[in-house]
């Protein structure tokens, strides 16, 4: 039992964490897991800053349809709702996969990651079909500044999901071949951050592009 436990028999009754913090100050540099995760968190935030530039471009070019179709005429909200459902469900199963990784349970990890992969592919398939349909109707990215901005923004998110799919398959293979080593666990942590962050960006996409584009 440590001194802190003697001084505060009920843990830290006032949630001051004073004793703990003073000890931690002498505990040396943080673990590699924290440093790696934090660095990747900074990357994700920079990625969001990049997306914010695409969102700003889209918002500025929203009315520049050059006589072509506007969002209200093009968007199919039922498709978007299904896409959203798949991505949200994949975010949930990705969370279950991280829990399985913490418990070092290969079966559940592979199962959850496999389901995440399928949901992600379903999302990509619906998006690819939507893009192909738009191009076939003469509403491709070259039609107007509005459509250029639309394809850039939504396509960039789609590219991120595609990259995430490749990373997901890599993690399945690495856990299969190498097991839950510390470095693999760090990669799983970063992958989960990436996948959940993509879902957050999708919230902005479906609200600003599709819902606001159809409502107004």
């Amino acid at each position, binding site marked *: 039992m*440590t001194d*802190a*436990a003697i001084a505060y028999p009920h*843990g830290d009754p006032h949630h001051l*964490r004073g004793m*703990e*913090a003073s*000890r*931690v100050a002498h*505990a040396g540099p*943080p*673990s590699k*897991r*924290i440093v*790696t*995760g*934090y660095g*990747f*968190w*900074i990357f994700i*935030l*920079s990625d969001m*800053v990049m997306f*914010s*530039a695409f*969102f*700003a*471009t889209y*918002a*500025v070019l929203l009315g520049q349809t050059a006589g072509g179709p506007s969002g209200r005429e093009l968007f199919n*909200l039922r498709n978007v*709702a299904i896409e*959203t*459902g798949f991505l*949200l*469900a994949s*975010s*949930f199963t990705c*969370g*279950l996969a991280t*829990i399985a990784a913490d*418990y070092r349970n290969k079966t559940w990890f592979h199962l959850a990651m496999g389901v995440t992969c399928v949901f992600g592919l379903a999302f990509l398939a619906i998006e690819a079909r939507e893009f192909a349909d738009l191009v076939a109707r003469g509403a491709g990215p070259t039609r107007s500044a509005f459509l250029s901005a639309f394809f850039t923004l939504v396509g960039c998110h789609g590219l991120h999901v595609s990259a995430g799919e490749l990373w997901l398959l890599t993690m399945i293979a690495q856990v299969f071949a190498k097991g839950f080593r510390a470095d693999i666990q760090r990669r799983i*942590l*970063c992958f*989960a*951050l990436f996948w*959940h*962050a993509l*879902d*957050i960006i999708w*919230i*902005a996409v*479906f*609200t*600003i592009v599709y*819902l*606001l584009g*159809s*409502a*107004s």
Partner: protein
Amino acid sequence: MTSEYERGGHADLAPGEESQDGEVSLLQRIAGYLTGLGLAILLTATSFFIAGTDLVWQPSIPVALVVLAIAQMGVHLVFFLHITTGPDNTNNVLALAFGVLIVVLVIGGSLWIMAHLNHNTMPMDQIIHMQG
């Protein structure tokens, strides 16, 4: 009760990692994700419902959609990314706050500047009229 010191750990958490006080059981962790999923479904469904309804005052719809989106982002941050207000999460929250600041500056600044440009620029037909 295992303190962080006894585990040889630190007062910081990696982003995306759940607080590991040794008290969070497997079921509680799954329940956390289920809560997040439920709230996210509720907010998403409300968004899609409001976007297509005639039941509410129309000018309020864009505001409502933006508020719902921000709320859902908060739900995802807390329940999926585990970015919380706990003292072990301070660094992650500060980085997020800086990111949000830049995002607001980029989007708000672009819209502001471009709106003023449009406002101050003479329409093309007027320019042609003046030249002729």
